[in-house]
């Protein structure tokens, strides 16, 4: 019985301190990114019903069958993530950016007497994890991160509080109880995230009936994710200046700062399959549909924790053995839900109108194959995802007009990705306005440039529920240049 209690208390400590796997982690790899290919992005990624360039391998592999010349394509993107964060009515701006290869592709159409058979392979940067957050505000409430990390001493003979962060940083009494500090601290911090998902894609498409194409893409996925979070609590109003945070330890009279640092490092691997079909109705329209089978990502996670407290000029660091105890390496899988897309494009005298809808039931997202994590914990998170997430329909629309005399195309688009959380208002959904232009030289060399501006709201809790909530107005800007050579 005692062993069982120790086990559950250990789980409690680890989940309270560590950046335990959350719904946010699952959504990180489940939600779609901004795709590949500047032509597609310029049209709001409403491309599953067009898909006649190398980016078809990403959007609708059936469209690969529409390509009749060998194509080599490559792209470079610049992504900037801006965040206006508000904590206790104090607003802080922060941003982070990344530049990546977006795509390197090769397409080979087989010579045919009738129909079409096309193969392609591609490297795609399918998602960018770059994000940033900075906040700074005074919490007038009687809560704090220090109190949240307090260890509960039950039963009486249990010594687990000796592994608690406040106890080791002299922020609690000798029983692990945070008895002096009671909120009213200035809270600030930053979180920087980077990395992305890369896919090596092998695709094929065939015309199975006149104007009807079927194709598939096998994606070998890899990627990295790194999050560095720093959090401070400062006694900016001198409330605890004359109080010993650890009674009986005189040097703790002048508490000034509590600091914690969480570093999360992911190595991501996995594979997935996407099938698609596209039908071309004469020269008037195309209709497409795709099935994205669940992606299975294996996450090898390294979590590193550190903390310290400051009392005037005295600094107390976390003992190294406790740092090691609270840091860990684990491994688990995340399985994303099916994604179904229906698309159409209409071609009217040089103007192409395109639209698509994508259905994703995020409540089907799952954690599994826990190594180094309690299976019960994952069962709880999976249950939370069933209860808190929902099925949503993302919508993409776009248009493109070709000026034939000068070989220039202009594009515009809009995309909407509703929030996967139940009950979130519409402004928590991601929205993007996009535009772009394309040039063609010598009937062989095409340059496409696209720009996308996105905006949405979200929030995050530093600890607990709605105790220290950071409201965030996000803006995302992406510029993408794609070069294509057909011969």
């Amino acid at each position, binding site marked *: 019985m005692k062993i069982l209690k120790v086990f559950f208390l250990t789980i409690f400590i680890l989940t309270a301190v560590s950046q335990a796997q959350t719904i946010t982690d699952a959504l990180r790899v489940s939600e779609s990114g901004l795709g590949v290919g500047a032509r597609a992005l310029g049209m709001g990624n409403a491309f599953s019903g067009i898909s006649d360039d190398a980016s078809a391998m990403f959007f609708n592999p059936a469209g690969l069958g529409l390509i*009749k010349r060998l194509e080599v394509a490559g792209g470079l993107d610049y992504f900037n993530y801006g965040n206006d964060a508000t904590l206790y009515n104090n607003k802080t701006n922060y941003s982070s950016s990344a530049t990546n290869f977006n795509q390197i592709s090769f397409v080979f159409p087989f010579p*045919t*007497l009738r129909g079409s058979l096309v193969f392609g392979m591609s490297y795609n940067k399918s998602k960018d994890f770059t994000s940033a957050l900075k906040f700074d505000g005074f919490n007038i409430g009687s809560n704090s991160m220090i109190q949240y990390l307090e260890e509960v001493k039950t039963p009486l003979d249990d010594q687990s509080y000796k592994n608690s962060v406040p106890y080791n940083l002299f922020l609690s009494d000798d029983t692990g109880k945070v008895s002096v500090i009671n909120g009213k601290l200035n809270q600030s911090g930053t979180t920087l995230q980077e990395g992305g998902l890369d896919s090596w894609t092998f695709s094929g498409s065939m*015309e199975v009936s*006149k104007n009807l194409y079927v194709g598939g893409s096998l994606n070998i996925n890899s990627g990295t994710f790194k999050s560095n979070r720093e959090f401070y609590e400062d006694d900016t109003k001198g409330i605890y200046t004359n109080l010993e945070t650890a009674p009986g330890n005189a040097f703790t009279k002048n508490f000034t700062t509590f600091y914690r640092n969480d570093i999360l490092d992911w190595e991501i691997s996995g594979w997935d399959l996407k099938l698609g079909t596209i039908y*071309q109705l004469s*020269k008037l329209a195309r209709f497409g549909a795709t099935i994205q089978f669940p992606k299975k990502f294996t996450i090898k996670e390294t979590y590193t924790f550190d903390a310290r407290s400051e009392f005037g000029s005295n600094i107390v660091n976390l003992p190294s053995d406790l740092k090691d105890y609270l840091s860990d390496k684990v491994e688990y899988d995340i399985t994303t839900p099916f994604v179904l897309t229906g698309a159409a494009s209409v071609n009217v005298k*040089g103007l192409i109108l395109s639209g698509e809808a994508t259905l994703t039931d995020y409540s089907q997202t799952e954690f599994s194959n826990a190594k180094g994590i309690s299976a019960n914990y994952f069962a709880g998170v999976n249950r939370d995802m069933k209860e808190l997430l929902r099925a949503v329909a993302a919508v993409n629309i776009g248009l493109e007009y070709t000026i034939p005399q000068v070989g220039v195309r202009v594009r515009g688009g809009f995309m909407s990705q509703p929030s996967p959380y139940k009950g979130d208002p519409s402004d928590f959904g991601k929205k993007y306005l996009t535009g772009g232009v394309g040039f*063609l030289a010598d009937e062989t060399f095409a340059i496409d440039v696209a720009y996308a501006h996105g905006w949405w709201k979200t929030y995050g809790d530093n600890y607990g529920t709605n105790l220290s909530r950071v409201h965030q107005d996000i803006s995302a800007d992406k510029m993408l240049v794609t070069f294509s050579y057909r*011969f």
Partner: protein
Amino acid sequence: MKAFKLLSSVIIMFAVQGCYTVIWTPDVAFPTKEKSDNSDSYYEEIYYGEYSPYYEVPWWYSVTPPTRFVIPASERTAQEIKLRNGSSPEGRTPNRRPDQPIIDYGTPSVDQTPTTTQTTTTDDNSSKKSESTTPQREKGNSSNSRDTRNNDGSRSSDTPRR
């Protein structure tokens, strides 16, 4: 596993006979614009200018069709046989073993009678040369002899062909 089964089904579906797409193989004439049965165009030149060929013209229309030029063996003439069997690189002597001495017969006269060698097969399934108008040249491993394997440097005209 489900995805694998579905992928297998799609591949099998593609592989079955009767699929619409017919890929070119070297056994048939190379596809040209006139001989191909292509799907509808989406980018008409009037509205898309040079984007039209960018999307609509297959790459194989602009390449020279590969050809396979074969002359049946029965059509090989005596002159071609002579050329083929006698055209060794300069300085090399065909059909001569390294340990064989070089025999100089001098410069052939203009009216020298060409070698005619006839091979007959005996009952014991071996062959022998029955007639030769220029026995000297035969001993000299003339490359004009059909029963001599050329260029392997190991067989002389004296050796019966098995």
